[in-house]
């Protein structure tokens, strides 16, 4: 039962990751600051780094929760197109009330409504898809990918349906953009993410039990339906936050969770979540520091991340198929 205490088994590795994350954040601040523009750059970069850290957390937590609740490690909310579902909700709003009207709504109020809609949708969809008795994993992967494609094309279609002037309002949201973070929503995003921490940490043992599968979890006295519902609603919220802040990134969650799973084999949910978030911060903040501030490539990091994550996805699929 050693693994119940974090320190002896994974303390060193978490420390290393924490150090790497700190270095990444430091690099983000100091690299490529124009001479004499320190004060300005610093102020500008604080907001961005906070947003990137929130995204790192939101994607890590939602992906890991998804893996635990669905008992697969290949699909993620992003691969299943949940970010596209969020965009669809957003486009739907613009379509129904018009672009100008949308712009005049308080962004925080609008975002809150979108988050609630997203939580309801994702809970419903997840319950429908995943609470039936154990499904074949390959079927699930297939269904997941089809859903992803469906949501993406629906949100594209909806975007085309609306007035060209309105389209400008949504267009910017439809691509990953680490360099143009949506800072209007920073405060509400901080609050929302902070709100999930007591759930994620307080229920970490329950998520461990959940990962053993429905029957074993019930045998151990877990209130299975309740935990599933909370988990799905939380995933919906976290996907909304990350998509609203930087847009959709399909394979990022897969990449960072699998790096963490490899780095801390057999670790429990709570410890793994810390590790995943740190890996995500290193990748996102460190990557952005190098790509944007040193190399001056704007908007390429998301492509690189998606490419690496896509490779992980392919490897997992091929390995799964070989079994």
């Amino acid at each position, binding site marked *: *039962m050693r693994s119940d205490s974090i320190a002896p088994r994974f303390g060193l590795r978490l420390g290393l990751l924490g150090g790497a994350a700190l270095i990444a954040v430091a690099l983000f601040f100091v690299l490529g600051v124009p001479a004499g523009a320190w004060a300005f750059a610093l102020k500008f970069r604080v907001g961005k780094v906070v947003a990137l850290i929130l995204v790192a957390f939101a994607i890590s937590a939602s992906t890991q929760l998804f893996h635990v609740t669905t008992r697969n490690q290949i699909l993620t909310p992003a691969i299943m197109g949940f970010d596209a579902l969020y965009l669809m909700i957003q486009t739907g709003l613009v379509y129904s009330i018009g672009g100008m009207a949308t712009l005049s709504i308080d962004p925080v109020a609008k975002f809150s409504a979108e988050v609630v809609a997203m939580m309801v949708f994702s809970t419903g969809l997840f319950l429908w898809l995943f609470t039936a008795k154990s499904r074949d994993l390959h079927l699930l992967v297939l269904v997941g990918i089809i859903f992803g494609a469906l949501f993406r094309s629906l949100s594209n279609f909806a975007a085309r349906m609306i007035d060209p002037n309105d389209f400008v309002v949504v267009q910017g949201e439809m691509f990953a953009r680490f360099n143009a973070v949506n800072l209007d929503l920073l405060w509400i995003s901080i609050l929302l993410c902070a709100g999930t921490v007591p759930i994620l940490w307080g229920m*970490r043992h329950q998520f461990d039990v959940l990962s053993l*599968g429905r029957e074993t979890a019930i045998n*151990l006295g877990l209130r299975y339906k309740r935990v599933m519902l909370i988990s799905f609603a939380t995933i919906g919220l976290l996907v909304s936050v990350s998509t609203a802040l930087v847009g959709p990134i399909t394979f990022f969650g897969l990449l960072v969770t699998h790096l963490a799973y490899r780095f801390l084999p057999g670790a429990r949910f709570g410890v793994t979540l810390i590790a995943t978030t740190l890996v995500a911060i290193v990748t996102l903040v460190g990557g952005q520091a190098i790509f944007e501030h040193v190399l001056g490539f704007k908007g390429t990091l998301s492509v690189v991340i998606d490419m690496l994550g896509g490779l992980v996805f392919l490897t997992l699929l091929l390995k799964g198929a070989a079994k």
Partner: protein
Amino acid sequence: MIRINGVSHQIAGMPILSDVTLTLPKGGITALIGPNGAGKSTLLSLMARLTRIQSGSISFDDANVAETPTQELAKRLSILRQDNVLTARLTVQDLVGFGRYPHHKGRPGPNDVKLVNDALEAMALTPLRTRFLDELSGGQRQRALVAMVLAQDTDYVLLDEPLNNLDMRHARQMMIRLQTAARTQGKSFVVVIHDINFAAAYADRIVALKDGRVLATGTPAEIVTPAMLKDIFDLDIVVQQIAGHPFALHQIAPPSTQ
């Protein structure tokens, strides 16, 4: 005492269990036997609340399965299922440790550690305790799953084919271990067993299920007879007495019918 009262179960309109009524006294080993598809696993799933009861009622002592909070039930009864898919990457000791979850809810104390060690020892898994489950043989994995249920330390234990994949030595050891726990700690086991001779040698009572109905209930001496076995399995089986136990020579057809 386990009370199963008028339990019927249907899947897609097909009757799986029909009006099953059973009273099993507290303490001892009850063997549940019957042909493939008789409804043994279904009955255990209903007893362990893994499947919702459609009609009838099941209770363990004063705890009605449908009404007692699931956390409470987890301290009173545990189940080993017939098919277990464990995708989580876990070590043996972590898996067995989960058996203590209903009692400590994530914060194991010294008593939990002790019970996990005892369960590992009882299933001869101590040397393998830090292995990952996907690095075990089929029989070793089965023993790990049983160890988890033993660590849960409940008064009632439902085991669906616990002898699956076990070699002769470990199968015998497991039955002896169950018998000891039943006698010294007053535990009640309901065990699905296909090898009728294990049932005859270790069970205090045998319940025979066929086509979703209780066909017979009795002591091994009453159930393990050629006439009974013919009724249950539609098979001619020679039964002999060896060391005070009835023994069914079920592997071979009786000479006369060959």
